[in-house]
């Protein structure tokens, strides 16, 4: 042993000697040869002002579009925008619209949307849009100007504590304290917004930080690591195996898919898994399009205005595979009565979503694409399939439910009247657009009709505010979606109530040549409010009627430089719709006068109802 260790020690000494000699050589080399070069390099380091740095960082991050609105505290940044040509800025007419447009862009493309607003009212106007994005887990970075650092806290002109005001509705926020922090902050903001469970991130920048007179070294990091942030990736293999076994043993299974499948770009995997298992599948409002609506295994949407077959199948199921869905109250109805016989497998990237309202029997925390890929592999390996006769019987039962009360096996609303039925408008819209348009919506009856009757076959085509339920979302979101593909058809399905909440964006559409088609289901009332007042308040229509004061939307569209078309008779609907979409390069406002008395059905019985307790029409219930 001893000689060996001596040899070792000698070797170590030798190595040390060689290192020392090398260092000496390097020192000489560095001082004579490298030093001038290093000095030269240093003079080549880019010196940029905070404003220019921000724009360079956005370019280096790959940002193509900013939706925003200028103001005092943001003017240095706007000047930096003016002096470059890689990032395009879209001037909206209200900051709320900037956030919704960036949101629509993010939903349609899967990229992170970018917003720029000024301090104070600019920042607070953006709040509704940030909350909308937060509730639906939409990746977005909102850059807000702020009063100069030395004025913060002094109630300066247009000062708002944006970090404080936005805190409960952001995934994270930053206030930049020094210009040199800008590159890292931008990198972190986009990373946080787009990874894990996506969400909005605010960067608040005081005006002095972006002062053009002060320049600093700029370099953009390639990657960023944060010790306090590691989003979930792979699911737990043991749990996945357990889940697959549960699926194979299931007799009355349902796949319940949500917005997470779209966010996780996993539609193909979902279709593969669903086909392989031959299971029925339903989707949340947010998840529509992840699984093709035209596929025979699709039961339609579930929840408050879900189909009879989807809700009833959920209620009677023995295994529910929830993927990227969060058991929202609009889905579950009374939580204590939710699917009494079902075992629940819940896949979600956010551990806090699991067992929040409904306890999961097999929780799987992970990115949906990785989990589904592994599930498919385990399924293949297991080399077995679900009980064919049990699944066959289950399908027989479901088909019987479809026949009995399904809204796709026959029209469950009156079709012989002289008034246009809102459902028919959506059906005709589907027909005329080939079911292939980007469809955004506002919030209310028209939103539910669009969700029920458009039949989305592709992900990222259905763009609506599901969680927050923000009226005014539709038109700016359609603008954002149009930027996903300038040649695609972008439609906003709206009502005469919602559209007036962001109607000023008609002006933005003109400026940037965004040929949005607005399909306004005009029932001359706040339809969903009126429906509830009819059903639960004995027809006392408190503040939901305004027939005598509605604008002439055709003239309004024309005043904004667009085309307006009014439709009043059922028989002219199809032709007018075709006329609307034939005007490819124009914004067309279709004011469709629909039956005011029509309600959205099916509708969950509440309070105290279960998933299967539904009103099917004004006179029938389950």
């Amino acid at each position, binding site marked *: 042993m001893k000689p060996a260790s001596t040899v070792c020690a000698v070797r170590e000494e030798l190595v040390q000697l060689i290192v020392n000699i090398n260092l000496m050589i390097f020192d000489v080399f560095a001082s004579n040869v490298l030093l001038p070069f290093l000095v030269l390099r240093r003079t080549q380091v880019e010196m940029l002002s905070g404003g220019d740095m921000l724009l360079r960082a956005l370019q280096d991050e790959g940002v193509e579009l900013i939706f925003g609105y200028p103001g005092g505290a943001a003017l240095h940044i706007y000047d930096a925008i003016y002096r470059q040509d890689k990032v395009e800025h879209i001037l909206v007419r209200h900051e709320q619209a900037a956030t919704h447009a960036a949101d629509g862009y993010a939903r349609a493309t899967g990229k992170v949307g970018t917003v720029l607003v000024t301090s104070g009212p600019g920042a607070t106007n953006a709040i509704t849009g940030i909350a909308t994005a937060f509730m639906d887990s939409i990746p977005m970075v909102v850059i807000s100007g702020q009063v100069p650092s030395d004025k913060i806290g002094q109630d300066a002109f247009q000062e708002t504590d944006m970090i404080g005001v936005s805190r409960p509705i952001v995934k994270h926020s930053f*206030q930049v304290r020094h210009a040199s922090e800008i590159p890292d902050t931008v990198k972190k903001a986009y990373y946080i917004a787009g990874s894990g469970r996506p969400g909005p991130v605010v960067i608040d920048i005081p005006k002095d930080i972006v002062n053009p007179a002060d320049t600093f070294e700029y370099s953009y990091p390639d990657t960023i690591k944060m*010790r*306090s942030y590691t989003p979930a990736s792979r699911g737990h293999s043991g749990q996945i195996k357990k889940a697959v076994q549960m699926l194979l043993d299931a007799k009355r299974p349902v796949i319940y898919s949500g917005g997470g499948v779209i966010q996780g770009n996993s539609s193909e995997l979902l279709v593969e898994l669903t086909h392989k298992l031959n299971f029925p599948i339903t989707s949340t409002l947010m998840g529509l399009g992840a699984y093709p609506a035209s596929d025979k295994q699709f039961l339609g949407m579930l929840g408050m205005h879900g189909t009879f077959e989807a809700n009833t199948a959920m209620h009677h199921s023995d295994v529910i595979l929830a993927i990227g869905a969060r058991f929202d109250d609009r889905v579950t109805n009374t939580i204590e009565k939710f699917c009494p016989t079902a075992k629940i497998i819940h896949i979600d990237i956010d551990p806090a979503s699991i*067992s929040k309202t409904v306890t999961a029997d097999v929780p799987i925390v992970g990115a949906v694409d990785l989990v589904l890929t592994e599930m498919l592999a385990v399924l293949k390996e297991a080399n077995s399939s679900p009980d064919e006769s049990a699944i066959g019987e289950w399908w027989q039962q479901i088909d019987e439910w479809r026949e009995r009360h399904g809204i796709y096996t026959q029209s469950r609303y009156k079709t012989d009247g002289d008034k246009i039925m809102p459902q028919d408008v959506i059906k005709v819209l589907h027909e005329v657009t080939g079911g292939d348009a980007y469809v955004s919506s506002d919030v209310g009856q028209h939103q539910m009709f669009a969700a029920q009757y458009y039949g989305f076959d592709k992900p990222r085509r259905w763009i609506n505010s599901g969680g927050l339920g923000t009226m005014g979302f539709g038109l700016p979101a359609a603008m954002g979606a149009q930027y996903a593909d300038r040649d695609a058809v972008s439609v906003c399905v709206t009502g005469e109530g919602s559209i007036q909440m962001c109607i000023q964006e008609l002006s933005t559409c003109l400026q940037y040549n965004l040929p949005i088609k607005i399909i306004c289901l005009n029932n001359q009332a706040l339809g969903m409010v009126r429906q509830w007042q009819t059903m639960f308040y004995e027809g006392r229509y408190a503040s939901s009627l305004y027939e005598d004061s509605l604008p002439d939307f055709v003239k309004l569209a024309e005043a904004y430089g667009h085309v307006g078309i009014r439709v009043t008779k059922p028989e002219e609907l199809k032709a007018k719709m075709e006329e609307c979409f034939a005007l490819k390069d124009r914004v067309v406002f279709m004011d469709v006068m629909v039956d005011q008395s029509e309600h959205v059905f099916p509708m969950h019985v509440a309070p105290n109802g279960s998933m299967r307790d539904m009103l099917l029409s004004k006179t029938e219930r389950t």
Partner: protein
Amino acid sequence: MRRIISVLMENTPGALSRVVGLFSQRGYNIETLTVAPTEDESLSRLTVTTHGDDHVIEQITKNLNKLIDVVKLVDLTEGAHIERELMMIKVKATGAQRAEIKRCVDIFRGQIVDVSSTIYTIQLVGTSDKLDAFSQAVGDAAILEVVRSGVSGIARGEKVLSI
């Protein structure tokens, strides 16, 4: 059930407000809260005591973990742990009371840290229960002012909360 959650978080502006905000936003209650930087100045350690059933506590820890500023956390009540709270209490101490209170302080192993002709200021360290018991022993009538630090805790044995 009462729980002590210990959180290691980035020592950055706004981090504390995010933690506190989370509790009010989601309707969780905070009984006590202490926070200070650690030996690594980039980190703060926050201890919060709260009440809730297993479901609520699970949600609290999950949502705390979701905060970007939170690096690590542990529910100390899940294992063997030591908890301490510091109390400073000002009491009337006149006449025969003076000796009685002094005895009481000795029994509770506290220290009298300031004295005037009519007042003792006492410092006492222990579990929250012990501090409650002392206050009770002295009696409301004698107490002039109480300040408590809130609970700090650390796990027993080898377990360490660090990065």
